[in-house]
């Protein structure tokens, strides 16, 4: 089966997501696919200190993320109408892999931050974990790479 019939694109509202979305749109056009954006809201930074620090109400933060995700989806639908989005709570890697499975996605296009060396070691990389654990093909898009041109015309499938 040709991938890119249903592409999952994790978003974090940072710069890295834009090249990934652009490439996903080009692939969806080429393969007449569908795009699902997924945003993972990780509540752990706000709850980890719960016994020591006052509780932080995460609901307004989630509402804000939902608004932001809706904006990204609206912009995406202008380019490719066959798109939807989902917001879930949890660790980003877990949320992304679960969303891919639940939505029946056959591929992922993931923006990377291009961190190297110590920064990558300390911060880890959601993209790297997805590459290792995903059951479907993953296309990582480096932030400094110019967009990959796709041929016009009939589907390559």
């Amino acid at each position, binding site marked *: 089966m040709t*991938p890119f019939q249903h592409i999952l694109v994790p978003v974090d509202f940072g710069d890295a997501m834009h090249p990934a979305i652009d490439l996903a749109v080009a692939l969806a056009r080429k393969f007449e696919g569908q795009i699902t954006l997924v945003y993972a809201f990780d509540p752990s930074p706000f709850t980890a200190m719960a016994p020591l620090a006052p509780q932080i109400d995460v609901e307004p933060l989630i509402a804000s993320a939902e608004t932001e995700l809706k904006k990204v989806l609206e912009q995406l639908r202008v380019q490719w109408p066959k798109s939807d989005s989902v917001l879930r709570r949890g660790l980003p890697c877990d949320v992304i892999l679960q969303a891919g499975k639940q939505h029946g996605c056959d591929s992922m296009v993931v923006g990377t931050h291009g961190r190297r060396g110590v920064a990558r070691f300390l911060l880890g990389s959601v993209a790297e974990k997805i*590459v*290792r654990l*995903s059951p479907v093909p993953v296309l990582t898009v480096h932030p400094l790479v110019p967009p990959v041109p*796709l041929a016009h015309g009939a589907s390559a*499938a």
Partner: protein
Amino acid sequence: MTKILIAVDGSARAPGVFRAAANLARAMNAHAVLYRALEASPDFTPPGAAGIDPLPAYLEAKARAQLTSLAATAPDVHCELRIEESLQPWRAILAAADAVRADMIVIGSHGYHGWDRILGTTAGKVANLSHRSVFVVHERLPEGTSGTAPQ
């Protein structure tokens, strides 16, 4: 012309990886470089013996036959074949992508189990360290085949 480096090994997953890569190459109207890094073992090829040891030539001929056979399954995709010996295939793949100025690397992954969690995988290292876009194909093995990658 867009160029993609398709890195395969000698395992039963290689045809599936190449099939996915060929589809992408068609979509990108790209020139493909079908690449195989031969994991050279110093145990088999002692220094100075390369000229008389038939093993490297045998392995290269076998790899070339495999790549030729893969390329023949997608005659509409322009494929250049490239084979190199390396002790560390992930380094060789990154170097080859630089050498051919690839826009993208396509590589197969066998998953992430056991020692891979500590040592990492070739695909993981390539995706992690490349400054290019990398398409990692998680190809399942055909039934009844082995996951090992013979030279």
